[in-house]
């Protein structure tokens, strides 16, 4: 085995590309869950974002417009979820699952004309001088703008949840909606906003997948990434920076295992494929072993419907 063939910079570059869609979707879902809502429709919102982004990129050739369209498509589907769960009081788990199936179907329908089309959107940064620095140049300055956006979004979500008044209200709603309501906070409005944000982020992740990571559209191309995003939120114990870590671990395990295989390392690939999920289960066991901490981590009102008692 010759590990010298493994270029860490290339590896890290691929890792970041593979992790970015997961990070977007996980950040969105994290905020949604912090507000006390469990939206299992991430996969559906992602795939709708993927086709929205792809169709727009195909028509306009613009990465920025594609990202906006992807986010819009995800938010649109999230709006449906918000209407169902916050106004019509449907069950969040069932509605979320339905949202995934619905999103996959709608995306296939919308995408019929786009199967087999290709894209010419190259948006990698190329800063003369900086991008050409050996090893770290491409890694730090050679990505597409959405990668940087995902990192900025992580910081912003952290700041919003922990340092802003609005974030405090959102967490209050997620921890105890009765109390928040009694104080006079608009529980429903906060949750609908969070759901829309979550949808937009999932859509953005989908758009990244279909426009940057694999510039093509095929049905079912998210292939379970929405579910991985949900797992990352739990893995991260609802903390943005840990979500970043989680996304990079999940993305990284895939990339590293593919590279190790290409090198001929004799580890059964099935073990590596299941590794991220094993880690999630382990983390779950560890964080729930300490009951006091577990209570602190998970939003207390997660998944509970809120009936406003005027």
């Amino acid at each position: 085995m010759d590990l010298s063939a493994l270029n860490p910079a290339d590896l890290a570059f691929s890792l970041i590309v593979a992790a970015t869609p997961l990070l977007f979707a996980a950040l969105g879902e994290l905020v949604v869950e912090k507000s006390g809502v469990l939206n299992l429709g991430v996969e559906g919102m992602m795939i709708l974002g993927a086709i929205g982004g792809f169709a727009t990129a195909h028509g306009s050739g613009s990465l920025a417009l594609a990202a906006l369209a992807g986010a819009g498509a995800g938010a649109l589907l999230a709006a449906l979820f918000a209407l169902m769960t916050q106004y019509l009081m449907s069950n969040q788990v069932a509605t979320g699952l339905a949202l995934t199936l619905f999103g996959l179907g709608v995306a296939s329908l919308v995408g019929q004309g786009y199967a087999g089309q290709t894209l010419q959107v190259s948006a990698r940064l190329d800063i003369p001088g900086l991008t050409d620095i050996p090893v770290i140049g491409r890694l730090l300055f050679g990505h597409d703008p959405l990668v940087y956006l995902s990192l900025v979004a992580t910081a912003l979500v952290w700041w919003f949840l922990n340092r802003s008044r609005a974030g405090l209200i959102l967490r209050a709603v997620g921890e105890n909606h009765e109390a928040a309501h009694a104080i006079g906070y608009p529980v429903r409005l906060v949750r609908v906003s969070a759901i829309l944000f979550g949808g937009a982020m999932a859509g953005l992740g989908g758009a990244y997948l279909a426009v940057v990571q694999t510039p093509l559209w095929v049905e079912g191309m998210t292939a379970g990434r929405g579910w991985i995003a949900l797992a990352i939120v739990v893995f991260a114990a609802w903390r943005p920076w840990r979500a970043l870590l989680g996304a990079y671990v999940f993305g990284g395990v895939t990339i590293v295992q593919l590279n190790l295989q290409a090198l001929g390392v004799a580890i059964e690939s099935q073990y590596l494929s299941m590794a991220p999920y094993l880690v999630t289960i382990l983390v779950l066991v560890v964080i729930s072993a300490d009951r006091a901490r577990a209570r602190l981590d998970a939003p207390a009102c997660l998944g509970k419907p809120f009936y406003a008692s005027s």
Partner: protein
Amino acid sequence: MSLWKKAAAVMAGAALAVFAIGAAAAEPLKIGFVYVGPTGDFGWTHEHDLARQAVEAHFGDKVETTYVENVAEGPDAERVIRQMAQSGHGLIFTTSFGFMNPTVKVAKQFPDVKFEHATGYQRADNVSTYSARFYEGRHVIGLIAGKMTKTNTIGYIASFPIPEVVRGINAAYLAAKSVNPAVKFRIVWVNTWFDPGKEADAANALIEQGADVIMQHTDSAAPITIAEEKGVLAFGQASDMTRFGPKSHLTAIIDNWSPYYIARTQAVLDGTWTSTDTWDGIAPGMVAFAPYNPALPKEVVALAEYARFGIMLGKIHPFTGPINRQDGTPWLAAGETASDGDLLGMNFYVEGIEGALPK
């Protein structure tokens, strides 16, 4: 009974009989297709669906086809197949290896319905199996890959370690090695037939490890788009994928199911259908090729065409000894060709391939 009444009865009977015959003639044969992926995958399922359309075009009003796409292998498949059998389909094509057990199970309960299962090995009185000798195609593209690689490294994206896939790797490797003794294969198992994101990641990993020609045994065109982006070469899978990489796409092995589907439909219409096991290759046209990339050097095209005709005429067999297994034990003696039984159960790499075959 009066004469008039008798005449009326006879005429009514005749009219009824004519009506019945007319109805029988007008009743089209319903043919069902069960697909594992979306028809828009531009790969495996796409080709099955093209063949379905060919059947419709060939037989016109005599047949009526329906298909269900994106059927997961497992309990879902059984439900879909049973539903098709119950709703009056006379002939059902189940087009993925993982549909084998559900197909055989449902077939037992519907002895009057004919089943055709792709790439499986279990048959019954009303279950036929069919597959294509893709390894013949792999031989041809292996030759091209061996000639075209400059880094002497060929990347191979493999799906699952089943004989079908292992056979393809071995055939391609032996062919590439025969024209380029320095050639190396880097093989990545992605454990999926269809996950564009993961296939793209695998292609990236292989390219980063020095592969400048990518082969795939997965169904999406994602590796081709990555090859195009990175400026390396690639081969399409199952279908012509030129549009995804006009510069990188050298050719593709095309699964051409139309002649077989038309022949089997004809057999059901004629009442001559029997359970058979078909394994056709280049010669009957079940394995075909996409047009060669115009950028391919003439001598490489000539080499590929020579091999294609050689296989067609039965002069060339991709597995002709001497061939050793990976561990060095002899498999085929000099001049000996592999038996179909050996090929169907192939579960080892040939000598020279690095890495362990997953179990």
